[in-house]
């Protein structure tokens, strides 16, 4: 999957996106729905040792329903947040079905504990599609699909011109993921 995404990459096609990246980022990240102030708070408040309350805070910011997980599933996820090392995504496969079944939630936990992982977002996925990087839709945290999504955003970071980076106060994965979300919605 990652191999296909990278070999079919067309930098020219990204130009309109890169040209307006800052604008797209502001459109999404600073929208009322995204609540940029609370996002920034979470950058500081999510820290080791991780607790279920921290996961609650992330859920709340994401606008997700309360987790309906057994205690051992929750513990397993918390432990995985310590064990995982970017860019590994295979660890996700070892989680129980209940935890794996919600990729958005899991990706947000990964993002706030390791900024190098990106939040899974349908609009961002569509944004990547507009750039010629087709990532399959999924309800589950499939390590290969999520890995391709994260890698594609990493690739964009690498090839983007410096004008995309001049001023931002969020991790770069968030900068690109948020911009992609606005770009995907525009389609």
């Amino acid at each position, binding site marked *: 999957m990652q191999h296909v995404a990278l070999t079919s990459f067309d*930098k020219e096609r990204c130009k309109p996106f890169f040209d307006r990246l800052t604008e797209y980022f502001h459109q999404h990240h600073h929208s009322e729905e995204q609540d940029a102030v609370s996002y920034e708070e979470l*950058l*500081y408040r*999510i*820290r*080791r040792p991780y607790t279920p309350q921290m996961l609650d805070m992330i859920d709340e910011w994401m606008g997700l329903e309360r987790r309906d997980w057994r205690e051992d599933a929750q513990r397993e996820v918390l432990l995985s947040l310590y064990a995982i090392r*970017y860019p590994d995504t295979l660890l996700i496969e070892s989680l129980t079905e209940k935890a794996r079944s919600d990729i958005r939630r899991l990706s947000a936990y990964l993002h706030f*504990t*390791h*900024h*190098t992982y990106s939040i899974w977002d349908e609009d961002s996925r569509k944004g990547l599609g507009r750039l010629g990087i087709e990532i399959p839709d999924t309800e589950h945290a499939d390590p290969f699909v999520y890995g391709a999504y994260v890698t594609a955003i990493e690739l964009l970071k690498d090839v983007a*011109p*410096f*004008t995309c*980076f*001049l*001023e*931002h*106060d969020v*991790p*770069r*994965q968030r900068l690109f993921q948020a911009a992609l979300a606005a770009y995907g919605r525009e389609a």
Partner: protein
Amino acid sequence: MAETEVVESYPTNFEAWIQEFNEWQTRIGFDPSWLGDYRFDIKFDWDTAGGEIEFGDFLGMPKWERRMQIPQQNIRDAIVSMVNVQGDTEFASVEQQNHLLASAPTEYDRKSALRIMCEEQRHGWQMAYLLCAFFGEQGVREAAKLLERNAQDGTRILGSFNEPIDHWLDFFMFTHFIDRDGKYQLKMLSTSSFKPLAASMGPMLKEESFHLGTGANGLRRVVKQGVIPCALIQKYVNKWASTGLDLFGTDDSSSAQWAYVYGIKGRYDEREAAVEADREHLNEASRELYFQELRGEMKRISKVRKEGEPDLHIPSDKFRRGIGKYAGEMYTVEGEPFEGSQGEYEAYLASVLPSEEEEEQLVNEYMQQEWIQYREWKGD
């Protein structure tokens, strides 16, 4: 060693220069093991460099890719001088800052500072490569000098890069004010008629954005925490803002004008600008953009201060200037002419800049507490 031997032993190419660089790291106390798996790569972004000269008297002609394509020796000299100054600042900042790693307030700050130092060294490395690869013996000689001048000895080319950075508040001020100036200088060179120089700027600017972000973010965390009084922070703002403004050079600068005529250094907003450049006031125009940016950023930083704390603001661009039309003039932080003698002005300056006692209090009292909002390192 005799003086002639020093000159004779100058490195002969970039590979030899790398040996000198390794010795420089040891000399300044930067342990190479701190680099981990970081490598000093030469990076070019040829796409953003552009193919045609974008401004000046050679407008529309192909950008120069090699030394011999540069039409005049004085233009070559001007390019060497620009690369030299840029490289000088990169190595200087590492000399100024590396001692701070041992006293970082958090692991996040230590790793951020280390990343900055690695990237500054890479920028210096890139500039040395340009000198060695494109400018023959003259370039190799200048590259060697990049490692000879030293911030601690006060021999770096620009004043700000000889200033001691004694503690972490100064570090955040430096990265906020001086690295922000760096962003301006790099962007002004990103449209250069000398293509390898222009192509070097893209990757450097990507990295530089993290540096000034570390400064702005660090200051916000300090202000938010509320342990160091804003009145004291303001004094450091007064100190560093004027230093940053001076880095843009003299008013009515003829060298800036020539650099524009040659197409080697443009305006900060060269590609976006809708109007012709005022060639006689290029430094003033860039400085004004920088000044307005500083004011906007300081408003953001000030917003998070605790209730009852005074507002933080950027002093007037006339205050405590060492370069330009206000150089050496007596102005208040508000930009009003100071009414009084030179001695009274010295006393006034002492009241609006950090004193030795306050510096002592900062380090031994405030910085002994939880003086900065905690942040965990999570990569970026």
